[in-house]
């Protein structure tokens, strides 16, 4: 007997998105209605997921779908970020004239894919979720189809992502071949000794996943796609797929293959170090804000991966906290980018920020806090995110990783400081418009306050995350 209550959120979202599609086809000029309905349905979805959040562990569909603390937390994180992303970007979509009915529907289907990924306990279910979210993202990236850069980025993302999905699928087949199952729990039971076929399978799957979170050396798509896509899609790219990919990372490495940690640990350490250093160094020369965010997100993913190298629950928890805080910072930063609007044009070069502090003191102050937090300067939230990671890493005596990580924060601090310098020390330019939507103002305000006062009560998130025990 299948308990359909457990997948009520997934059923609800599938039905909603079909319904919205039909509404959009039959009713003229309904983009605004659909946009608002999407936000509403995300709220309902959040309520449904919260309703299930007391469940410690439950399986469904022959153990291939899992509801536990990890999936609950990550789903809530996904949904909250999705709501804020939707709130921030409505005005932008209208102004660059891509406010169409397909947009929210694609976003919803991508979110459905992520939620499936987050709960998957089986390679096939996981692959299905992954493809669903990626397909929606290919279209979203090229959504501004009259724009050359946007089309290019969609195509680029499609080609590279399809390649990585192929590798990932090949890895799945290797693992199935050597362990006889696609279910994570069964795989872990069938592994008795190290088989090189399995190691190869792990490597292929890690390549696919690293591509999704844009870890070095599988990062090449990120800067172009971030720059080319419409900003409202870039913010989506920068936040949501990472949550789902990290969840799969955790589940895949820590459930079936925790006993083969000495096989994959070095790979993750390499990915982590390479991402941290590359992200820090490559961002220095950037002129476009979105491109800079792409490089900085590569660097930040390096820290998230550093938490995963430890092989302990503390490590996983620190990665999750890091990701959560990073999402808030990213949301805040993109809210600021959305605010750089003058006469219906959006600006996204770093030079456009010049002297911002004279005309827009509050906006600049928020950016100051966000950027120092991204650089990891205490007492802002970004520092604590890094602190938990290094705490977990040093517990395992991986001093090399910790020191490299900390040194690259110093390098990274340089380009964050550069932006602050441009905002605060440089001569001013023309004023920007200030008539922003309430959703945008609200998300900037809330996220900045979160970053600023996280240190007063850090236990809130820590308590939630400390329930996530995989091992």
């Amino acid at each position, binding site marked *: 007997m299948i308990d359909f209550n457990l997948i009520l959120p997934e059923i609800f979202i599938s039905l909603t998105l079909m319904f919205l599609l039909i509404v959009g086809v039959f009713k003229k000029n309904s983009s605004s209605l659909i946009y608002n309905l999407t936000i509403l349905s995300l709220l309902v979805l959040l309520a449904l997921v919260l309703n299930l959040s007391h469940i410690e562990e439950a399986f469904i569909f022959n153990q291939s779908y899992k509801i536990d603390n990890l999936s609950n937390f990550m789903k809530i994180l996904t949904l909250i970020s999705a709501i804020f992303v939707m709130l921030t970007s409505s005005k932008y979509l209208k102004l660059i004239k891509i406010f169409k009915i397909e947009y929210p529907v694609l976003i919803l289907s991508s979110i459905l894919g992520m939620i499936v990924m987050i709960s998957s306990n089986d390679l096939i279910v996981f692959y299905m979720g992954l493809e669903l979210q990626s397909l929606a993202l290919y279209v979203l990236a090229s959504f501004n189809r009259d724009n050359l850069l946007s089309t290019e980025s969609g195509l680029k993302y499609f080609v590279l992502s399809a390649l990585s999905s192929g590798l990932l699928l090949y890895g799945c087949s290797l693992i199935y071949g050597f362990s006889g199952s696609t279910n994570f729990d069964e795989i872990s039971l069938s592994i008795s000794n190290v088989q090189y076929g399995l190691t190869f399978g792990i490597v292929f799957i890690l390549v696919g996943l690293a591509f999704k979170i844009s870890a070095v050396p599988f990062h090449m798509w990120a800067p172009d796609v971030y720059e080319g896509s419409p900003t409202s899609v870039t913010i989506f790219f920068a936040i949501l797929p990472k949550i789902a990919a990290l969840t799969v990372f955790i589940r895949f490495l820590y459930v079936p293959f925790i006993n083969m940690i000495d096989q994959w640990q070095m790979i993750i350490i390499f990915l982590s170090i390479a991402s941290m250093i590359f992200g820090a160094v490559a961002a220095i020369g950037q002129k476009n804000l979105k491109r800079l965010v792409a490089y900085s997100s590569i660097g930040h993913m390096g820290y998230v991966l550093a938490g995963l190298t430890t092989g302990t629950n503390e490590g996983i928890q620190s990665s999750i906290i890091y990701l959560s805080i990073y999402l808030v910072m990213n949301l805040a930063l993109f809210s600021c980018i959305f605010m750089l609007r003058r006469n219906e044009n959006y600006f996204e070069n770093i030079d456009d920020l010049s002297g911002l502090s004279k005309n827009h003191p509050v906006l600049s102050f928020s950016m*100051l806090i966000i950027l120092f937090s991204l650089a990891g300067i*205490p007492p802002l939230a970004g520092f604590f995110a890094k602190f938990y990671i290094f*705490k977990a890493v040093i517990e395992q005596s991986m*001093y090399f990783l910790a*020191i490299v990580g*900390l040194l690259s924060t110093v390098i990274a601090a*340089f380009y964050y400081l550069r932006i602050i310098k441009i905002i605060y*020390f440089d001569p001013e330019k023309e004023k920007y418009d200030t008539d922003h939507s309430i959703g945008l103002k609200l998300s900037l305000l809330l996220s900045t306050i979160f970053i600023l006062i996280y240190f007063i009560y850090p236990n809130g998130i*820590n308590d939630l995350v400390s329930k996530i025990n995989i091992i």
Partner: protein
Amino acid sequence: MNIPILSSLILLPAIGAFFIFFVKSNNKKYQSSKYVALFISLANFLLSLYLWFIFDNTVSEFQFVENRKWIAGFVNYKVGVDGISILFIILTTFITPLCIISVNSTIENRLKDFLIAILLMETLMIGVFCSLDLLVFYLFFEGGLIPMFLIIGIWGGERRVYSAFKFFLYTLLGSVLMLVAIISIYWMTGTTDVEKLYVIGIDTKYQNLLWLAFFTSFAVKTPMWPVHTWLPDAHVEAPTAGSVLLAAILLKMAGYGFIRFSLGLFPIASEYFIPLIYFLSLVAIIYTSLVALMQDDMKKLIAYSSVAHMGFVTLGIFTMTQQGIEGSIFQMISHGLVSAALFLCVGVIYDRMHTRLISQYGGIVSIMPKYAILLMIFTLGAIGLPGTSGFIGEFLILMGTFKKNFLVATIASLGVILAAAYMLWLYKRVVFGKLINDNLKKMVDLKKYEILILWSLAIPTILFGFYPEPLINTIEVSVSNLIEMYNLNVEIYLGKNN
């Protein structure tokens, strides 16, 4: 219920800053935000004096300790003071209102933001001096980078961007290793509470590495040769109030850190690294004094003299004698007063002439006699003439050093002579001589508020020169307790190895 007096001290300026943030910013209201800032910082000063008054200097334990849960099961927010830290707190609360008064003329744009930055700086600096948990200390220590970066960068001189970046990145680079060390200490001992760590002690195998990690951070902040080069740049470009904060208080954080953490937590390693510290301190004293002689920019000259004076401080701390450490603390307080005053003095004539080049001045004594008198007092204080507070500090340090190492003390004494050379030469070139530059004639003598600031720094400089008792009494028990603990640890270690 007891009032949490230390937390009030820490929070009060932050609340003031918060309040000023919401004052509407048009030009007339700037005055009101200034009065708010002044009022808050004076209230904080009185509160810290009250703290000193009720402080019991006959016991060595930490007093007014507050211990609250913070990051669950890991770090507590713990603050407390002993005889060493209380003086630095008073120095901080004393210097801050003077900085706020001095912005009258120096800061023209964005006064409101400047006051917020200064008040936040005060919060963080007081936090550094009373935190009794390594992580809390780190938080305050690093947090200070943000307002200081902005102070130098927004209100600084021509090369302000370069200096602000250099200051920020140097200090950040120095500090990250300290964070690794703090986390390692947590995993070794299970706590980051300083008081508990004093009792538990840290495994001697790891002390050297941990000591070095802390040392890199403190050495950059002190600053010690060869990582001192950020200081002259930062000082030259910072606005007057920024230089004052930097010289008077920020540099003292590192000296305080050496005493509290390097000596207290890693006694064996400290003993091991004494020759290194002696060497670096001597280089700082002799080399930077020589460099100071050759400067043609007044602020740069005083900045280099700060490096030399801090060289005395580190030398004194690592003599591990009662005189040496007391002298170092005394020297830090005295340097806090004197260097603050010297930077303010430079600020006074810079406001009038808009140049800091020594060659542009000369013969000021005939137009600004009041200024000449005050500058004389502070010059003599910087030289360490008997009767000023600088003398007591340097004398005690040299006494402590002679006890331990004759050669080092002899070389260090040469530094005193060099200090006299560059300070008196500076004074001669600026104040005496002929009035060559006609522009100088337009200069007016000190205004009322400048007189107020400078005399309120001159009085303690002279007072503590003749009557150092109150300061010495406050620190005596804490210092002797520290040394006792230190010697005990070293003896046990040596006993084990023989």
